[in-house]
């Protein structure tokens, strides 16, 4: 019997050891007590990682003004969607999170709080709100745009105003041994952004994409896509393979004058600033099928998690309201985040040339939309990119075959 006592003691020891492992030091971290009291506090989880520090500063300013605690959860960006999904599932979701587009919002519909009746919604620039059915569920971060970013000393915009002259410009650079037009190997920069044009140039892009999913139209029968295939062939024939280029070298080569044009957006100006660029840069439309407009859209949107209790939801809305209406909040958006505002009540700040071009295009309304926000979820990295990689690896794959591959990819992802 003496042993049994020993055994009991032993087991108790073992059990307490594992509990110790669970609790040891738990009390001195003070975190748990904190999160218990901070019922009025809110959490933000968002995908645009470069504004993390500035957002934390904004949160701190807000806390100072109102006493409400705001915690910004970190992410590296790549794992955002996965982490958001896991957090929402286990009930630890953030109060405010970012939603890229309607496709994503659809999937997360049951977590999207209806913001339609909030005051700040009235200030959103026309067509810039994220809506699901009739409900407004997302406040745009800001406006972004992409097109041909060109070196003004090397390229005359008139020489790239239509497809034929664009191609002959490329041939000219190729003969001189200069990279005329740089894409890069990452999904969005290889095919994601540039694939927008043939879609966005349709009369009603969203309707077109629905018809495509339903099999009512076909890419191979749509003339813009035929021309897009030819344009991609011309790019492949006259420039070094984009698969050998990363985003960093693409922008670096442009800044160093080794590349005359790159397909990029106003966000690249941040990186160009880090180089001593000694020439002027401009942004021009990609002249597919006579296109003369920049592609302008919203990169991401703030959404409020409806799965939280009403107090937290109200807290989240108050924070967003403060960010978009108060002077301090607006200053953060324009100056610290560096966004081109998508709200009529916010004045744009001092802008770099690329953002200026996007703002002007946006104000004039002379833009084409971002169709990729309506693509089936993740079709770009999962399906379009392998197709485009095949195209750039196999010289004998034609532009038409690329379009066929994209169509097959679309059908695969839309299922």
């Amino acid at each position, binding site marked *: 019997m003496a042993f049994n006592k020993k055994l009991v003691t032993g087991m108790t020891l073992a059990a307490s050891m594992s509990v110790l492992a669970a609790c040891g030091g738990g009390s001195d971290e003070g*975190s748990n007590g904190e999160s218990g009291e901070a019922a009025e506090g809110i959490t933000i989880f968002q995908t645009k990682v470069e504004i993390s520090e500035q957002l934390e500063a904004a949160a701190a300013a807000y806390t100072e003004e109102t006493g409400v605690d705001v915690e910004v959860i970190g992410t590296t960006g790549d794992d955002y969607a996965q982490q958001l999904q896991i957090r929402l599932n286990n009930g630890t979701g953030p109060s405010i999170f970012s939603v890229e587009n309607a496709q994503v919002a659809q999937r997360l519909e049951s977590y999207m709080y209806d913001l339609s009746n909030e005051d700040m919604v009235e200030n959103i620039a026309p067509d810039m709100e994220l809506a699901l059915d009739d409900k407004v569920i997302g406040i745009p971060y800001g406006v972004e745009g992409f097109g041909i970013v060109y070196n003004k000393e090397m390229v005359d915009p008139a020489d790239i105003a239509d497809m034929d002259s664009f191609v002959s410009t490329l041939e000219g650079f190729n003969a001189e041994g200069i990279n005329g037009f740089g894409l890069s190997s990452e999904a969005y920069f290889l095919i994601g952004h540039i694939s927008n044009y043939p879609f966005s140039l349709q009369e009603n892009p969203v309707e077109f994409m629905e018809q495509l999913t339903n099999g009512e139209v076909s890419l191979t029968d749509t003339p813009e896509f035929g021309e897009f295939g030819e344009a991609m062939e011309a790019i492949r024939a006259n420039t070094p393979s984009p698969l050998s280029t990363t985003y960093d070298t693409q922008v670096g080569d442009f800044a160093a004058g080794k590349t005359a044009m790159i397909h990029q957006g106003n966000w690249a100006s941040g990186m160009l600033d*880090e180089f001593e660029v000694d020439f002027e840069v401009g942004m021009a439309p990609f002249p597919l099928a006579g296109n003369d407009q920049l592609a302008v859209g919203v990169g991401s949107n703030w959404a409020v998690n409806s799965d939280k209790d009403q107090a937290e939801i109200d807290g989240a809305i108050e924070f967003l309201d403060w960010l978009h209406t108060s002077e301090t909040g607006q200053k953060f958006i324009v100056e610290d985040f560096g966004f081109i505002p998508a709200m009529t009540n916010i004045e744009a700040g001092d802008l770099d040339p690329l953002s200026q071009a996007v703002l002007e295009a946006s104000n004039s309304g002379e833009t084409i939309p971002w169709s990729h926000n309506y693509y089936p979820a993740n079709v770009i990295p999962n399906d379009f990119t392998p197709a485009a990689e095949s195209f750039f690896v196999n010289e004998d794959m034609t532009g038409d075959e690329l379009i066929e591959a994209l169509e097959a990819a679309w059908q695969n992802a839309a299922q």
Partner: protein
Amino acid sequence: MKIIRTWSKEILLLLMALVFLSPIYIIFVNSFKSRQELYENTLAFPQEFSLQFYEAAMARMDFFNAFMNSMYVTVVSVVFIIILSSMTAWMLARSGNKISTVIFMTMIATMLIPFQTIMMPLMQLVTGITRETGIPLYNSLSGLIFMNIGFNAALSVFLYHGFIKSIPISLEEAATIDGASKFGVFWRIIFPILTPITATVAILNVILIWNDFLLPSLTLIDKSLRTIPLSVFYFFGEFTIEWNMAMAGLTLTIIPVVIFYMIAQKYIIKGIGEGAVK
């Protein structure tokens, strides 16, 4: 003749190690370069060895706090892993019954499960436990330690198991006859013999836990709890990364592990020469 042969071997070994290490050279030199310099020549020596990116990286990462968190999590996890898994492995290796074989095989089979397939159920379970029982598994360093023990148990038991088999069983039998309890036999006789493999287990676990990103990123919310790998996210952008900062951050991250490795390997390499092969 012999001297020449020895020397050529030495030089060969050094060359091999240098070639092998060259990618790390890229990390080191580029942690001193500006974005433009980095782009212009990645392989060259930096124009100047200024520590500005290290200072900036440390400030943005809140390095000291992150370092203490990482240190706490790693040390406590590894101590528990060594104690618990060496005991378990010894029992499994020595008892020789069917159940032990089944437990052992199950444990090592789980080493084949990709983390991606269990992370979602795991997080549901962990937050469920936290909600229902109040035991802070979620959003606490202790909870992270608990999960580290669970995830690294299999590897550690596996490593110990293999080496316990090579210890002569007669040692233990002698001690048992002398009346020592199992507990005494293990801690006084077996565990000291296990030192080389304990050092190996310690090294491998320290690295896994110190560098782990995914698990802490899922379980820790509060800024004050961030470990070093989590703090590096400030250098990330939507499309690109501030490589010079990231490399400075990485260099800072691995220095403690390299020091630890150099100390710990002395316990693996006990008395070189007596066990030498050449």
